[in-house]
C-alpha cells in the first residue's frame, strides 16, 4: 500500500502549493479549474452533473480554464500559461498513450494541485485489465498485424496518432498526485465533498476523498452467516433484500473497498465491484479479498477432506482477475518485462 501510494505521497517542500503567495481559495475570487480526460470512457466528465442544483453553486465559484468536454481551450492554450497558473486540475482516465502522459505532465507543471479523479486515474481502472496482454498483441488484435501509428495522408509526422504506452497506468505513475477522488464514476457525495474542500479547507496531501473504513460499515444488509458455501453471479440470484450479499454467495468486494458511496450497489442488490479502491491498509485489494474468501469458504467435511469441496466452490468464480482486480490491476500488479515488450514508454509502475 505504501508503495502504491508513492505518487501521492507528501510533496517535497519546494513544490508545495500551500506555501508563499498562493492560497487559491481564500485570496482569489474564483478557483481556476481544469478538467482533463486521458484514457477515459467519459463517464467521469458526466458525473459532475450528478451534483444537481449544487453544480450551479460550484460553477459560480470556479473559472474553467481548460476542459475539453466543455470549453474550447486547446493544448496550446495550456502550454501558454505560466507554471502554476491553474489552481486545480482534475484528471480522469487511465494513462494509455504517450499523449496522455505528456498532458498529465503539462497539467502538473501548470497546476498547483492535481486531483486523480475516478478509478482510472486513481488505480488504472477497467482499461487497466488490458495489462494482461502485451501492447503489441492489443494493437494486432484491434488493427491487424504489423500496425504502426502513421500520420494521415499528407500529414506531418507529428500528426500521427500517439504511441501506446507499454501498459495502462494510474495517474500517479506519471506525475505527483495531490488528492484522489475515487469511484467509477465518483459518487456525487464524494464530488461535493471534494469541491467543499477545494473551495474551503484543504486536507493533507495524499488525501483520498472517501471513507477510511470499508463499505460494509455503511451497508444496511445484515451480516450473520459468515460462511461461503457457494458462489453465484448476480444474474443467477434474486438476492434476499436484507442479508449480506456475500453471505448469499455473491462476490461482493465491500469488505476490501473504501466506503463513501453509501453502499449504493449493495443497496440495489448488486455486489460491490470495488471501484472506490482498497481501504488504506488492505494492500492489494484483490489479494485481500481472495484471502478473506479463503477464510470464509466452507464446504464438505472438516479438515483436509474439505479442501477439494472448497476448491470447487472457489472454482465457480468466473473471471477471477476481472472480479478481484477490476479497477486496481495497474496500481497493484507490476507488469513483468516479458509482457512489456519493446518500444517507448515506461512499463508498469514507476
Amino acid at each position, binding site marked *: 500500500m505504501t508503495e502504491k501510494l508513492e505518487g501521492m505521497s507528501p510533496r517535497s517542500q519546494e513544490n508545495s502549493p500551500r506555501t508563499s503567495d498562493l492560497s487559491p481559495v481564500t485570496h482569489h475570487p474564483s478557483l481556476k479549474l481544469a478538467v482533463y480526460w486521458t484514457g477515459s470512457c467519459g463517464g467521469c466528465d458526466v458525473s459532475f452533473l450528478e451534483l444537481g442544483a449544487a453544480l450551479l453553486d460550484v460553477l459560480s465559484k470556479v473559472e474553467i480554464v481548460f476542459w475539453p468536454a466543455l470549453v474550447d481551450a486547446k493544448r496550446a492554450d495550456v502550454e501558454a500559461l505560466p507554471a502554476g497558473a491553474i489552481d486545480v486540475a482534475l484528471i480522469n482516465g487511465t494513462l494509455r498513450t504517450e499523449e496522455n502522459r505528456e498532458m498529465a505532465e503539462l497539467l502538473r507543471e501548470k497546476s498547483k494541485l492535481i486531483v486523480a479523479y475516478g478509478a482510472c486515474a486513481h488505480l488504472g481502472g477497467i482499461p487497466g485489465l488490458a495489462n494482461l496482454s502485451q501492447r503489441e498483441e492489443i494493437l494486432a488484435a484491434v488493427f491487424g498485424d504489423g500496425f504502426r501509428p502513421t500520420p494521415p495522408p499528407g500529414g506531418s509526422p507529428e500528426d500521427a496518432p500517439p504511441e501506446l504506452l507499454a501498459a495502462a497506468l494510474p495517474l500517479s505513475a506519471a506525475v505527483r498526485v495531490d488528492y484522489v477522488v475515487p469511484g467509477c464514476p465518483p459518487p456525487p457525495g464524494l464530488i461535493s465533498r471534494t469541491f467543499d474542500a477545494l473551495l474551503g479547507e484543504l486536507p493533507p496531501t495524499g488525501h483520498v476523498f472517501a471513507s477510511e473504513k470499508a463499505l460494509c460499515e455503511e451497508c444496511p444488509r445484515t451480516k450473520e452467516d459468515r460462511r461461503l458455501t457457494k458462489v453465484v453471479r448476480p444474474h443467477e440470484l434474486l438476492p434476499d433484500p436484507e442479508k449480506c450479499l456475500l453471505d448469499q454467495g455473491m462476490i461482493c468486494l465491500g469488505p476490501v473497498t473504501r466506503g463513501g458511496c453509501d453502499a449504493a450497489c449493495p443497496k440495489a442488490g448488486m455486489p460491490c465491484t470495488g471501484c472506490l479502491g482498497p481501504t488504506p491498509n488492505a494492500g492489494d485489494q484483490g489479494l*485481500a479479498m481472495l484471502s478473506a474468501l479463503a*477464510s470464509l469458504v466452507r464446504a464438505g467435511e472438516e479438515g483436509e477432506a474439505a479442501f477439494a469441496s472448497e476448491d470447487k466452490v472457489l472454482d465457480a468464480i468466473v473471471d477471477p482477475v476481472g472480479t478481484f482486480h477490476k479497477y486496481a490491476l495497474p496500481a497493484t500488479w507490476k507488469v513483468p518485462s516479458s509482457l512489456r515488450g519493446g518500444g517507448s514508454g515506461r512499463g508498469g509502475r514507476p
Partner: protein
Amino acid sequence: MFVCHCGKNIAGTVDVARVSEALARHPGVVYATHHEYMCSEPGQELLRRAIREHRLTGAVVAACSPSMHETTFRRAAASAGLNPYLVEIANIREQCSWVHEGPAATDKAIRVARTMVEKVKGNHPLTPVEVGHAEKCLVVGGGIAGIQAALDVADAGFEVLLVEKSPTIGGRMAQLSETFPTLDCSQCILTPKMVEAAHHPRIRLLTYSEVEEVSGFIGNYHVRIRKKPTYVNPDRCNLCGECAKVCPIRVPSEFDCGLSERAAIYIPFPQAVPSSYTLDEGSCLGLVPLRCGECAKVCEPRAIDFDMHEELLEEDVGAIILATGYELYPKEAMAEYGHGTVPDVIDGLQFERILSASGPTRGEVRRPSDGRVPKEVVFIQCSGSRDPELHKPYCSKICCMYTAKHALLFRHAVPDGKAYVFYIDIRAGGKGYEEFVNRAMEEEGILYLRGKVAKVFRDGDKVMVWGVDTLTGKRVEVAADLVVLAQAVVPTTGAPELARKLRAAVDAHGFLQEAHPKLRPLEALTGGIFLAGAAHAPKDIPEAVAQGSGAAAKAVAILSAPVLTHSPEVAEVDEALCSGCRICAPQCPYTAITVDEVAHVNEILCEGCGTCVAACPSGAMTMRNLSDVQVQSMIRAALSEVPEPAEVKGG
C-alpha cells in the same frame, strides 16, 4: 545476535562462527557472537552483559525452538533492562541443523537469523496483559480422580463445584470388587473419600447434573449446569426402600451392568452419596400426568416430590478439571466373540459386579444364564484393544492386572474351578504388579495361554472358545462355563461433546488431549482446563488419584494467583479502520473476537494464531509485533542472497 552451538546439535551441522560473522555485517546489528550453550548461565550472562554494554534495543538468539528457551532468554533480557518482547528466537536447530546437512544448513541458518533480526527491528516493547479471576473450581466427574481433585482443591482453601452426571459420586471404583495388587476392598477404601467430599465445607456436590454451557477463558469461565430433578428430597429420604418395593417398574441396573434389575425409583448402591433415592423419570410410568404414584403413598418421611423441577445454575469458576472417566468398549462390537448375544460372555466390569459382595450374586461367582457356579472360566485379554484393524489400536493398560485379579479371585471363590487367561503380552509395570501376576500364574494354578482367541460361540450350555497357544503352536479349544472379556477402555460417551463445549481437544479415540505429552500431561491446550483420570487415557486407580491431585495443584496455582497474566503478542483491531464486516469473528478458533460496530479482541482468549489477521479484508486487524511491514521485511531478509564470507584476517 547470539548464536548457540547447542553442543554439537547446531555446531555439528551449522558453521556458527560464520553465522555470527555474517550477522555482524547485517544492517542494524551492533554485536554478534556465538556460545557453546546460550541457555547455560554463562550464555545468559553473555546476553545480559551485551545488553548493558551495547545498550541493545533488541536481541536475537539463534538457538533451539522458541517453545524451549524463549522464556529463558526473555527473562534474562528483562533482568538486564531490555523489554522481553524485544528478544526473539531464531530457530536454527529444529528448523535447520536437525533437518539439513552440508553448507546449505549454514546458509539457511544465516537467513533464519537475519529474518528474526528484521522482525526485532519492528518490535515494540510490550507488557503482559493482566486480568483477575474467579476463586472457584469446577470439577466434572465424580469418580475417584474427580473426588481426589475436588478434595485437594477444597483442602487448599478454594470452593469446588463437583458435577456428576449420575445420581451418586463414586464412579467406576464403586463398582469394583477388590483392587489389584493388594486386594483391598474397593468400596471400603473409596467410601471414606466419598463421605469426605460430601461433607467438605467447600465442596458443593451437584449430582444428577451436567455441564450445559461453558464460556469465558482461563480464570474467568462462566458455566451453566443443569441439575435434573431426582423427585426425592435427600434431606428427608431415610433409605427405607419402601418406594422401590412398591414400584411396578423393573429395568436393568446400570450399577450392576445389567446383571440385576432396579425399580424406577432406586438408589444405585447402599453407600451412594448423596444418600438418597432417585426417581428415574425415563423409566417411571409417568409424572405428567401422574400415572402411578405408588411410591409416594408408601413414603413415610414424605420425601417424594413429584413437582420438583430441574435447576439451572450459573457459576463463575477460575479453573476446570475434567475427570469424566471411561466406559468399556461394548461387547456388541465384538463379532468374533458373539456380538454380546451369548449370556455367559460378559465383560470385566460385569465380572467385578459378580465378584462384589454388594453385587447381584452377593459375591458368589454364578453365571448370568442359569445361575450355576461356573467351573471352567476363560478370561480373554486385549478384547478390542491392540487391534488396529478391527477395534482400538491402543493398549487399555489396566486389563492385564485386573484379569490376573479376576482369575485369582475366581480361584479363591471356586477352588475346584479352572481359569484360563488368553493374553498377547503381560504388561505389569507398576509397584508390586509383576509380583502379583507371577503369583497368579505360579501359585494360583491359573493357566496362561499366549495367543488370541479366534472365536467364541455358544454350544448347548457351554461357551466354546477356540484359540491358539502360540508358545506350543497348538490349537486350543475350551468348553467354558463363563467367558470374561477384558474389553478395551474407551472415553465416556458424552466426553467429546463436553470437550467441544470447553474447546479442549480430544485425540482420535475421544480421550482428552494433553497440552504436551511429556511436560504438560495435566493440562488441556485451552488455558485453565486440566485433565484427570481415565478421561485422558486408560489409567489404574493410583494413577488416576495422582493425576487428580496433580490437576488440583495446577488449578490451585490459578485460583491462588493474585492476577493472571497473558502474552501481549495478540491480535489488535484498528477501530478507525474496522468496518465491522464480521468476517474475522467466526474464523477465531478461540472465540476471542466479538463484533458490535467494530471488532474487539479479548486479549486473554487470543492465542496470537493470526487467522483473523489473514481473514481481515481491510487490514484493520493486525498482530502485535508481527505487522505486515515486519513480515514483508522478514520475507525479504529470508530470500535475499547470503553474502560471501568476509576475508579472515591473520591466521
